[in-house]
């Protein structure tokens, strides 16, 4: 009996990423933390669609009369993965430019805007 252990595990992944976001000062590590949170959320989203014993929801060469898993979460996860890719690209671009100006990736030194 696994109950809903997979959901809890996805939440653990989210929390691990959040931990990195809270306590890692390196900007790249912050981005990595965001990616971990994002993967946890995506995993959670796709896990909601699983049906016990289901097959992938594609009829091409599917075995006859098999139950299929729910297709919507897969589509949503696809969308959110691409969105994650886009945000990561932009964030890394900012990190690159910050590094060019400051020659450091330490978040504690990138605090020109404060107070």
């Amino acid at each position, binding site marked *: 009996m*696994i*109950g*809903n*252990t*997979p*959901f*809890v*595990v*996805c*939440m*653990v992944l*989210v*929390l691990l990423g*959040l*931990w990195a976001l*809270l306590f890692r000062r390196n900007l790249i590590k912050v981005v990595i933390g965001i990616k971990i949170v994002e993967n946890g959320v995506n995993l*959670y989203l796709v*896990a*909601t*669609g*699983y*049906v*016990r014993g289901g097959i992938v*929801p*594609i*009829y*091409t060469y599917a075995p006859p009369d098999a139950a*299929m898993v*729910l*297709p*919507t979460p*897969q*589509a*949503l996860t*696809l*969308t959110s993965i*691409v*969105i994650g*890719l*886009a*945000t990561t*690209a*932009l964030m890394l*671009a*900012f990190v*690159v*430019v910050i590094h060019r100006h400051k020659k450091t990736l330490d978040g504690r030194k990138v605090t020109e805007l404060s107070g």
Partner: protein
Amino acid sequence: MRRWTVLAAFVIVAGSLLLGGARMRPFGAPRHDLMDRYFNAWSQTEAATSNVVTAIVFDYRGYDTLGEATVLFTAVIGVALVLRRLKR
């Protein structure tokens, strides 16, 4: 910001999120799946597509995909803006 404040808040958030995961319906046994059963049953008829996920991505929820394509486009424009050459 105090480290202990953040830690306490983190513990509360962690507990709530784990509680949320634990109180979900059992894994692999969705309670409401009307919409998804409809997709599985009708995508070949309505969208003439054997791949149900693609039918959802480009037909039933094509607007989301448009938004997603826009996100990608926006990110590319953003990267081009941030990494552009400055004539000065």
